[in-house]
Each structure stands twice: as structure tokens, then as C-alpha cells.
């Protein structure tokens, strides 16, 4: 967004009272205020307004499903007028300060307390910034070589580039002075015990694990990979990764859609999104699927996947058509078919890092939930404190996998939870 476009767009904002966009934002950014600040040529002020509520302001401006959140709540929608482009305005304001490297915040007075953060994703970085504002020292331990978690490794690159994601973290690190130890995975009980000895509190922001397996025969064939891993690889290699000619994406979530869109963009001849229920029941946002369709992806609905066919390499996926009856899916006998392909991307969701989390003594995981997706989540109280008082957690590991903005909102609260805990 250019300065001129930002000026025109910000001129349209009505400056609603107790604006619905603010209330639709999990971090509660004072959106009309920052838009007004952009309009009066106070971009630093705008960026400060954004960051005060959300330390991942730039990433969120780019990756947030704004149609579902702030922009979806804009009152212009009720007037059949295009809502304000809040996400782009937010990214514009934050981009300016990140590039100018202007310091907007001062860290709090040193408390002498030290906090370890596991994971430099949105939750970990947000917690780090907030803890530094409160005067606590912070060390982050990150398993990978880059910060920002799924912002760098997991979302489609058209939303946010690696450079942008990393620049924001560097910008924040510069003014807050937290330490990040890269390529330092925390792997087991001994590591956690070390952290417990060295730090006053520990924040867990490890997100979720790799793509869950399908549990069907043949999924170990060549050419079958997780959608998330596919996105990670293409992001790390700037799209210089192989893509199949005929790609089948299994699943109906946002990562499945990202993988489908990117496959189309990288030159796959056909891309099929196969989902076991109807299109309206997909977990993905409508606009994500629309984007995939614009790229050339096709949806095949109400199909249950069977065996993955092929020799060494994948040659197709067997499906059976189904119908929903009383909320349950029933196969339609005799409707089996094989969809040929040379690549299968599993958009079947990420698994929880249950094994790792079980290494922490005294924390409780959600085991009994009737909702399968909830099983393995870390259980926390309203201050995001786990059953082991020294451990706090936020983000996907706690919420089961939502948006960057949710992680940012939760981590901020967790930081205050830690602060309260340390004052006791």
C-alpha cells in the first residue's frame, strides 16, 4: 500500500464509537485510532497504537483472516459499502516503523527476574515483548533456525514473506533486548529441569507438531507429504521445490487451501481438494477456498478417502462417495472411484506435541475431550498458567491451533499472568 492509497483509504473510516472492528479483534487494537493517526500523518503513532495491543502487528496485518474479524465487523458491510481495508492499513503503518527502525517502546525497570520461553513463534515473541515491558529478562529457545513460527514456516508466502516476518521480530528484538537461541530444541525432561533451575518462570509457546498421519494403507508412498511440510519447504526454498502434475489435497482446512493455492501457482496441471463433507462445512475460510478456485483448484466433496494407490510412487487415491445422515457420514455402496495423481498433500491437521509436553512434571493435558481436536491441548487457567505453577503457555499448544492474532492476544495475557505470579 502506498502512502497515497493509505491516505485515501484512511479518509473513509467513519471513526465509529466503541467500534465493532476493535471488538472483533482478539487483541483489541484501537483500529479507528490508528487509522485516524495514519490520516493525520502520524504513522509512528499509528504503529505504536497497533503494537501496544498486538506485538505481531505486522504479521497479523498480512496473515489475519480480516474478512472474518475486523473487516467483517466494519459497519460499512451493513451499508453494502466496501469495508475499510484494515489489514492492509495496519501492515502499512507497521511496515513504516520496521523499515525506519524507529524505537517506539522502552523496556520496564529491571526486576531481576528471568523467564525462559520455549518457541520463538507468535506466542513466544509476543510474551517476550510484554515481559520486557514489565522489566523481566527473557531467553527464548527456538528449535528452528528462524523466528516467527508458522509465519515463516507455515502460511502461504503470498500472505507474508519470510523477510517481512523475520524483520518484524528483529525490529522488536532490537528495542526489547530479549535473547533468542536458535537451533536449540528443548527435547526432554532433562532440558525442562535445566530451565526450571535457571529461570523464575517458563513460558511454553511450542505450537503444534507435524501433519498427522491418515491411517490409511499406502500413505508412505513417494509423493505423499504433509501440506504444512510442503508449505514449509517451498517457503524455505523460495518455491524452488517440485510440485506434481496432478495434485490431490486431502482436507478442508486453511493449510489445505494454502497448499492447493500454492500448487496451482507453482504449475500443477490439476489440483483437487478432496473433503469428506460439503463445502460449507470446511474449516477453511470461504475466501481461502475462493482463492484456491481462482488459481484453478477444484473441490470434490462428500468423499471418504481410502487406500493410497501406486507402486513405489503414488499413482492415485481411492475414494468412496458418502452422504450425511443424522449428522454422521455414511458411505454409498458401490460408489468407489480412483482419482489418479502423482502427488498427495495431507491437509489433515497438525498433531499435538503430546510426547514433549508430557516430559514437564505436573502439567495437565486435555485427554478426555469428546472433541478429537482438543485432545492433547495444554490445560491452563485464565492467566494462562498450567497446573505446574512455574509454567505458563499460550498459542496453538493451548488453543489447539487458531490464528497468529489469537496467539498474540493470549501470550500478552500470559505475560501478565507471569508478572503477577512473580510478584507473589
Amino acid at each position, binding site marked *: 500500500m502506498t502512502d497515497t492509497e493509505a*491516505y485515501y483509504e484512511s*479518509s473513509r473510516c*467513519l471513526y465509529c*464509537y466503541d467500534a465493532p472492528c476493535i*471488538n472483533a479483534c482478539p487483541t483489541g487494537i*484501537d483500529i479507528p485510532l490508528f487509522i485516524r493517526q495514519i490520516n493525520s500523518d502520524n504513522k509512528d503513532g499509528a504503529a505504536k497504537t497497533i503494537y501496544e*495491543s498486538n506485538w505481531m502487528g505486522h504479521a497479523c496485518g498480512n496473515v489475519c483472516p480480516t474478512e472474518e474479524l475486523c473487516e467483517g465487523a466494519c*459497519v460499512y458491510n*451493513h451499508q453494502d459499502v466496501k469495508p475499510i481495508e484494515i489489514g492492509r492499513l495496519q501492515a502499512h503503518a507497521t511496515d513504516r516503523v520496521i523499515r525506519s527502525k524507529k524505537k517506539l517502546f522502552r523496556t520496564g525497570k529491571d526486576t531481576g527476574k528471568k523467564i525462559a520461553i520455549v518457541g520463538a513463534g507468535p506466542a513466544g515473541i509476543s510474551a517476550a515483548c510484554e515481559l520486557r515491558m514489565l522489566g523481566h529478562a527473557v531467553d527464548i529457545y527456538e528449535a528452528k533456525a528462524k523466528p516467527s513460527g508458522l509465519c515463516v514456516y507455515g502460511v502461504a508466502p503470498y500472505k507474508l514473506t519470510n523477510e517481512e516476518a523475520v524483520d518484524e521480530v528483529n525490529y522488536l528484538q532490537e528495542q526489547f533486548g530479549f535473547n533468542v537461541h536458535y537451533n536449540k530444541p528443548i527435547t526432554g525432561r532433562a532440558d525442562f529441569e535445566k530451565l526450571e533451575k535457571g529461570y523464575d518462570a517458563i513460558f511454553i509457546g511450542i505450537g503444534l507438531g507435524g501433519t498427522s498421519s491418515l491411517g490409511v494403507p499406502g500413505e508412505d508412498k513417494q509423493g505423499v507429504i504433509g501440506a504444512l511440510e510442503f508449505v514449509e519447504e517451498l517457503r524455505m526454498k523460495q518455491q524452488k521445490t517440485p510440485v506434481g502434475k496432478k495434485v490431490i489435497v486431502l482436507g478442508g482446512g486453511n493449510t489445505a487451501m494454502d497448499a492447493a493455492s500454492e500448487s496451482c501457482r507453482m504449475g500443477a496441471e490439476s489440483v483437487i481438494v478432496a473433503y469428506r463433507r460439503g463445502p460449507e462445512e470446511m474449516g477453511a475460510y470461504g475466501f481461502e477456498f475462493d482463492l484456491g478456485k481462482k488459481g484453478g483448484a477444484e473441490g470434490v466433496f462428500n468423499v471418504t478417502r481410502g487406500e493410497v494407490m501406486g507402486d513405489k510412487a503414488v499413482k492415485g487415491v481411492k475414494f468412496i462417495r458418502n452422504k450425511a445422515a443424522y449428522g454422521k457420514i455414511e458411505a454409498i455402496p458401490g460408489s468407489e472411484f480412483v482419482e489418479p495423481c502423482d502427488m498427495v498433500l495431507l491437509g489433515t491437521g497438525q498433531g499435538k506435541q503430546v510426547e514433549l509436553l508430557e516430559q514437564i512434571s505436573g502439567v495437565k493435558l486435555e485427554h478426555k475431550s469428546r472433541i478429537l481436536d482438543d485432545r492433547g491441548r495444554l490445560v491452563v487457567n485464565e492467566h494462562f498458567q498450567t497446573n505446574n505453577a512455574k509454567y505458563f503457555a499460550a498459542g496453538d499448544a493451548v488453543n489447539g491451533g487458531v490464528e497468529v492474532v489469537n496467539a498474540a492476544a493470549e501470550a500478552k495475557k500470559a505475560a501478565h499472568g507471569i508478572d503477577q505470579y512473580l510478584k507473589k
Partner: protein
Amino acid sequence: MADLRTNLAGIKSPNPFWLASAPPTNSGYQIMKAFDAGWGGAVWKTLGVPVVNVSSRYGSLNYRDNRMMGFNNIELITDRPLKDNLREISEVKKRFPDHAVIASLMVETREEWHNIVRDVENAGADGIELNFGCPHGMCERGMGSAVGQEPKVLQTIVEWVKEVAKIPVITKLTPNISDITRPARAARAGGSDAISLINTIQSVIGVDLDTFVPSPNVDGKSTNGGYCGPAVKPIALNMLKNCAQDKQVGIPISGIGGVENWRDAAEFILLGATSVQVCTAVMHFGFGIIRDLKTGLERYMDEKGFKTIEDFRGKALPNILHWEDLNLKYKVVADINKDKCIGCQLCYTACEDGAHQAISLSSDPADRKPTIIEENCVGCNLCSIVCPVEDCITMERRDDGKQHLTWGDRTREGNLPKTFDDPLAGGLHHWVPEPAEALAKVKPRHYKG
């Protein structure tokens, strides 16, 4: 089909749209182009004594992304030689005999006035406009607004002009005066055939926050300029009304000040203008806006059944009274159409913070549509003005329309409130919350401090 032809004190033009004396009428080239585009008349950029202009001459007042809602200039009268202008006046009149060419003039002595009036008459001008309005550069030399601000001096000069003028004379008035009817009456007393108003308003358009120099910047310094553009229209309309309602003025008026589209023009005519003059809008968008001005006014006249400009000229004048003649018994209250409401709550915050605390919000945060507290509503209009939805908040009449009582009636009857406790006093009916209730109010969660 509406007939737009206009006759202002004998100056005829095919339509009421004239270019005001300003940069767009600096040359025969521009005026021919304007007439070709459809303009009905043009007041030539003021002819007079030799001047020297500065470089950097204009400043703009923008509102959000709207440019030039206000405009100021420090340009002087024409700096082109008189003989060139006279030759071009002849040439334009030859090519466009039915269009109005009015020569704006500004000189000092009686002899100079006599000479220049004869010159422009000989060149073929249809009328003369006396520039007694320019508020910068010329007034310091005893001309322009310096004349317009002194009714006696103004009248004398009008008399000098009328001693020789055979064509109609329009006196252009400055708004930089507290009572516009005084110079207007003086113009008539001096024999002026018409008046035109308003000229520009003395202004400083804004200060550059980095250089600390107002705009326009002339080598690090600036000066007061003349303000015009859409933002001055309400001031122009008021002064037009004052002159048009004043029986001692009683001469035709050419209206000037912020006219940009046909709606503006229609408003000037409804308040008594025979022709309207346009400058800033042309400086912004070019002569082509005449297409909207003409077609829009024609359509309006056809729709209302007005055959000529005279059919509706001054039609709004009987509807503007003195405050003391307004009906105190008339009572309206705001009404929100909840089907149209989009839930921005601008009406709520405007009324709550800026008016009379007569709008409430639902206790259910999911219901964003505000409600009027009718007993607190004074019918001020503010909510309906800030509402971004057309016809969502309307003002509904609540009195029975049978009673009529004005402050003037009361004064004449000796029926005025003497104390604040007097039931006749308006304030008695004006409810306000207790001061401390302000602090107990629920604030939006993002309001800090």
C-alpha cells in the same frame, strides 16, 4: 424545456453561469475556450494600474482526501498590458456576440476611472464590474477592499464611473466587513445598476509545521490572502440573503462564493441571485464543469416546473426570518430507523459528548443500534447530521402545529422570563445529568486512562 437565459440589469447572457474575475479570465484565449464549452458570461480579470505579482500565489485547505475545499490566493489584478486586454475583449465579443463580457476594473483617480470606463466600452464590453473587494496587495494602495470597507468612498467612485458609463455597472463587494448591506446601499446610492458578492475573505490558509511559514511561501515568508472555494459558500449565501432582503439595496445581484455544481447555483438563485459567478471550481476542474452546471439546473427547473430563472429567483427569501420570529412552539425529536441503522454509534457519541445526552445504547453489546431518549431530545439535528446513512435519522414533529408563539410576540406582550426559575425560561426544560455521573459511565474497553 427550461430557458436558462439571463438578464442582469441589462447584461444578457445565454445562461446564468459566469466566470468570476480571476485567473480563469486572464486572457481572451481562456474566455473563448470557456464560451465554446458553454459558459454564459465572463468577468474579465481586473484591469487597472500596472502591478507586479509574486511567485507562489495559492494555498489550499484540504479536508481528508478532498483537495481545495478552501482556497486562498495572493495574486493581484492583471499584470498584462491594458491594450492587449482591450484588443482581446473586442475579439471575443466579435466571435461571441450573445455572450456577456464584463470588464472588471480597479484604478485610483477620477480621471483614471473615466478613461478606463471609456476604453472598455469602446472595446465592446457588455458591462463593468467595479472591484472593491480584493483583500490583499491592492487595498494597501487604497484600492480593492479598502474602498469596499468605506461606503462613502465606494459611493463616490461609483458616481465617478456613472458619470461616463453607458453600459451597466456592477459593484463587487468585499465580505471583510461586519454589515454587508452598508456598502450595498452605498453602491445603489451611487447609481450602481447591480452588485456582485462575495469577493474573497481575508485569510491565512494554514501553517507549514516544518518551515513555520504559511502557504503560499514566498522566499520563506507569506502574507494574508483571499479565501474562497466550497468552504465559503455559507458565508456568501448569508450575505446574499442580507442584500436581497434589504429593500434599500433593491438592485440585481450576481452571486459569488463556492459555487461548484448546479445545486450550489440553484441555492444562490433561490436566495435572489440573477447570475452566479464561478472561479475556484474551474481552477480545480477546468471549464468542463459547465456541462453539469447547465444540465443539472435545466433538469431541476423542468422537474419543478420553472420555465425561467425568474420563476424561482428569490423563492427561499421569505423563508429566512430573524431568530425572534421563529415559532417557539414547534417541536421536533430525532427518530432512528433501525432497519437502516448500521450501528456506527456516531449519533450516540455526538449527542453524548457534543450535545444533550439524549441517545442511549443497548445493554446488550451485540445490539449496536442506539435509541433516542425522547424526553431529553431538544431536536437539535446533530445526530441526523453525523449519521452516515441517508434518511436513517429523521426529525419527527411532536407539536400539534396549532400553536405559534415567537420571542418577538413575547417581547411585544411583555411576556419574557425574568429569572431562571421562571417557567417561561427555556433552560428550565433542559435536562442535564449530574457531573459525577460522567465518571461512572461504562467506557469502551480500549479507552485508556
